[in-house]
């Protein structure tokens, strides 16, 4: 009966934000656009606005941080910034929570207990860096510099990448390739001779027909894309969403196609079949720029909508209708290439099929299709030449994955560490990426780590992977440091500056400082000739006719405008083997792969099992924002989306906690069930990043379940080594 007193005892004990940021003192470093007189140790009265760019995800939106009486108040988008247009996403707005995060690493740590037991002693920076330098020197002399691998995600890792290049290791990688967008980049490169890139070169804003295949824009808050998506919705664009789950994007769509998971390629092939057989494609584009179209057309003729219906469960009429809709609006029809594309192991071929469908629309370089991005070209710092690595990178021995181009494979580095093939790996240096959640099969990662004699983690919070490190280095958060210039290619070229807004509360250091100090200890000081990062940035900017002082004022400076669409007389260039858009790929044929994408049936879940799907939430990035008090307040744990009919049949109530057991017997943390009509009956869905097991990461410990833990199985893409992760099946274990 007593709902009155039920929540009474839950008195709020946490300090309010004001109290949490009380340890603020502004040094001279903190100067913003609005210059203020600073007396050392005293807080500045009034409002300060300091431009910088965001670090809550990799989109790098321009932002303006506000200080009120010397204390962090809020962060808004920089109106000059073409990525944010003055409006950040919820994570960016919640960025101030990063500063006051009570779980932050405060001082360097050296492991004292077993790996993974999270037992450390606090040491000075000198002690920590000496420890690392000594081991790195030893590894270099005994096993060669290539025995050290750098896993680095985000622009903050640039200085460490520079250090590793100077050290002589070719093994620099990020999970963003083989665990995320790699298949897409390779698929597009094989077709158009160019990658999609990040931010994606998708002109969503001007699309009259937008096709989202598994892309859940709106839940996935890549800022510009969502802004453009909302604009397209407002302008009345036809949105076609293909997803086993009725996503937010699905709710904005004219057509929602509730596809059977794993069969997307069948749908794309059938769409192309309709468009080709009914001659609805952009004939001029195909004629002028297409290569091998006839062979492609012949191949594709077998994939009728009736055939696809059996695979995908999408009615043939709907397949036809949506194909007509795409053709109607071409070239302003955009089939979004997605971002996290490592699903089923045939992902490069699926991405290639998406590229081909786009090619049929003739939307390359067209308004509402794929625009031509450009950037602000700022010369690199004039460093001395790096030593030439003595050996190839370790991730792809004997070019096992012949199309793994451009970036290195993180899972490949792990394989090399485990197998010592092509050579032994002795050390991992990990910057801002929780490999335990990012790589499939957690146990393999842990096994690889146990083989190392040096593991360093640089991060702002004690993520799970930090618990396995020999040395943990606490980095300043983005609001407290300079980073490299952001010169991403986009609709408008620009250069963005990240600069300190506030002092670090404890003994945290910026990554440029860490890299420079470590370089000195490794006798690589000549590669860091600049005194401090301001000098580095100013040198780069001066070489482009700009200055650090100017950029500190503005935060963003735009490059002279360029055209982002092809005009009537422009001839697009395609950097493929044939110099054309390859409907039929000879390089693929020569390497023994399908020159035109072919469909293979996905494995079906056994009776009583569901396919495990995962995705993003608007308020979190990976597993690294979970202790931000703004963001965790809005989402402190994930939910298991389960079809309500199934829930009823299993006797599970909405909101009840269950556990999941996968095909290999691995059992998850408990997770709250969201019994909903918004998902198919043959799969379950959860947001990625939760269920972390690091005790040091207190606020996230055991909250929700981890999809990564259940991804014990993965299917490797034979073209480029991507790890298809949506191939795991789970059954539901009722909580006792």
């Amino acid at each position: 009966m007593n709902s009155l007193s039920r929540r009474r005892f839950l008195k709020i004990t946490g300090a309010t934000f004001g109290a949490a940021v009380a340890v603020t003192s502004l040094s001279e470093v903190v100067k913003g656009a609005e210059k203020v007189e600073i007396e050392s140790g005293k807080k500045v009265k009034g409002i300060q606005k300091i431009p910088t760019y965001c670090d809550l995800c990799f989109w790098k939106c321009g932002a303006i941080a506000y200080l009120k009486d010397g204390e962090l108040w809020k962060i808004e988008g920089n109106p000059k910034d073409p990525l944010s247009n003055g409006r950040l996403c919820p994570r960016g707005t919640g960025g101030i929570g990063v500063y006051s995060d009570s779980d932050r690493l405060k001082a360097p740590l050296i492991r004292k207990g077993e790996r993974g037991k999270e037992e450390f002693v606090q040491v000075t920076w000198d002690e920590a860096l000496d420890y690392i330098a000594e081991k790195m020197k030893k590894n270099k002399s005994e096993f060669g510099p290539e025995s050290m691998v750098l896993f680095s995600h985000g622009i903050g890792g640039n200085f460490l990448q520079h250090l590793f290049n100077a050290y002589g290791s070719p093994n620099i990688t990020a999970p963003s390739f083989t665990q995320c967008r790699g298949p897409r980049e390779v698929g597009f490169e094989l077709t158009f001779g160019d990658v999609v890139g990040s931010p994606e070169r998708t002109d969503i804003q001007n699309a009259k027909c937008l096709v989202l295949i598994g892309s859940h824009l709106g839940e996935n808050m890549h800022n510009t894309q969502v802004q453009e998506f909302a604009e397209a919705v407002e302008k009345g664009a036809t949105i076609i969403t293909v997803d086993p789950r009725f996503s937010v994007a699905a709710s904005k769509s004219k057509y929602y196609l509730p596809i059977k998971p794993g069969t997307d390629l069948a749908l794309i092939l059938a769409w192309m079949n309709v468009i080709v057989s009914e001659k609805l494609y952009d004939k001029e584009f195909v004629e002028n720029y297409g290569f091998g179209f006839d062979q492609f057309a012949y191949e594709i003729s077998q994939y009728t909508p009736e055939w696809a219906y059996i695979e995908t469960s999408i009615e043939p009429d709907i397949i036809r209708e949506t194909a007509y809709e795409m053709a109607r609006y071409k070239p302003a029809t955009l089939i979004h290439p997605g971002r996290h594309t490592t699903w089923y192991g045939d992902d490069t071929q699926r991405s290639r099929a998406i590229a081909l469908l786009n090619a049929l629309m003739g939307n390359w370089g067209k308004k509402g299709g794929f625009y031509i991005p450009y950037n602000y070209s700022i010369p690199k710092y004039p460093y001395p030449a790096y030593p030439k690595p003595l050996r190839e990178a370790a991730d792809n021995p004997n070019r096992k994955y012949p199309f793994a181009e451009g970036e290195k494979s993180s899972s490949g580095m792990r394989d090399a560490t485990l197998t010592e093939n092509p050579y032994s790996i002795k050390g991992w240096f990990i910057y801002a990426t929780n490999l335990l959640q990012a790589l499939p099969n957690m146990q393999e990662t842990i096994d690889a780590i146990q083989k190392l004699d040096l593991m360093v983690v640089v991060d702002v919070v004690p993520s799970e992977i930090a618990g396995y490190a020999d040395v943990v280095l606490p980095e300043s958060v983005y609001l407290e440091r300079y980073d490299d210039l952001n010169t991403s290619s986009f609709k408008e070229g620009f250069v963005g500056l990240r600069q300190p807004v506030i002092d670090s509360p404890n003994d945290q250091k910026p990554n440029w400082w860490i890299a420079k100090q470590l370089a000195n200890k490794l006798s690589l000081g000549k590669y860091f000739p600049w005194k401090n990062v301001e000098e580095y940035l100013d040198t780069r900017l001066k070489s482009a006719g700009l200055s650090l002082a100017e950029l500190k004022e503005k935060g963003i400076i735009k490059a002279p405008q360029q055209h982002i669409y092809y005009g009537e007389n422009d001839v697009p260039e395609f950097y493929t083997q044939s110099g054309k858009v390859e409907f039929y790929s000879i390089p693929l044929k020569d390497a023994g792969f399908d020159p035109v994408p072919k469909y293979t049936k996905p494995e079906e879940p056994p009776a009583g099992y569901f396919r495990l799907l995962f995705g993003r939430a608007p308020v979190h990035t990976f597993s690294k924002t979970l202790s931000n008090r703004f963001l965790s307040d809005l989402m402190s744990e994930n939910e298991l989306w389960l079809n309500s009919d199934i829930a009823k049949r299993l006797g599970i109530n909405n909101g009840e906690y269950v556990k999941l057991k996968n095909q290999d017997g691995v059992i998850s943390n408990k997770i709250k069930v969201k019994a909903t009509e918004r998902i198919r009956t043959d799969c379950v869905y959860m947001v990625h990043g939760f269920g972390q097991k690091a005790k040091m990461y207190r606020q996230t410990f055991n909250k929700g379940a981890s999809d990564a833990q259940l991804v014990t199985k993965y299917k490797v893409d034979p073209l480029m080594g991507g790890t298809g992760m949506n191939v795991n099946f789970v059954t539901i274990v009722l909580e006792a």
Partner: protein
Amino acid sequence: MNEITSTRNNYTIDPTLSVWGWEIPVYLFLGGMVAGMMLISGYFLFKGRQTEKNCSCFYLPYMSVILLSIGMFALFLDLEHKLYVWRLYTTFQITSAMSWGSWILVLVYPILLVNILIKPPKFLEEKFPQVINWKKYLLEKPILLKNIGIITMFFGAGIGLYTGVLLSSLGARPLWSSAILWLLFLVSGLSGAAAFVHVIAKDVYERELLAKADNAFLIIELFVIALFIIGLKTATEVQAQAADLLLTGEFAPSFWVFVISIGIIIPLIIQLLAVNHKVKHTALAPLMVIVGGLILRFIIVSAGQYSHWFNSNFH
């Protein structure tokens, strides 16, 4: 099928409102008791029963002052911004039931004081001898006393009404948006007060009278509860759902056991037997009535906060 989710999770607001704890029902109960007592003692004054040696009208005002003060203290405890309580008396807000209530309470004290002066306590007479003169003055003026009785009844009814109106003026809570909640609380206050007098009355006539009156009040209360429920059930869907909270929902066990059975039916049967001299008068039945009245307030206050326009499925 509708699925509603909300990201809101405000302390004491979600998943269901729980802003008012034990303090409010305790106050409403004591306020109701005081209302009933004032009606009874006012009625006795009106009837001139102060000439009797052991009239309840002599000690009910004392009890009223004590119970009302306890109730007001509970009310004070409920305030979240206690240091600002004086703000109640720097203004009068004509649309606010609570503003009316706070001013009525201020007026009730002098009336009770006048009631007390009819038979003031010994220590008061010793300390302030002029009190004796006032007592004499009052006792010599039966018409004045009659009028004091009327005023006492009037303000007693006022408090009783107010305790119900306080809730029913908050239209956002379907359970409370009933036009007869005031009547329910008034009758329940009367039955509680009658039961109380039944227990403490020294005069046999009064005891018998109050037992009979209590039986009448309990029967009326049953009817009022029935009307209250029927009114809700036949109103909007959300109000029907609110009624179900009491009839079959989360609050049903305590409603049926404590309010209906222990609070009304069983004591009614016992007291019917007692007034017909089949069983002896005991304190049991009236105590049950009093406990039932207290629990009625608890249930109405909690279930009222539980009831809502949206049956939201909060996350």
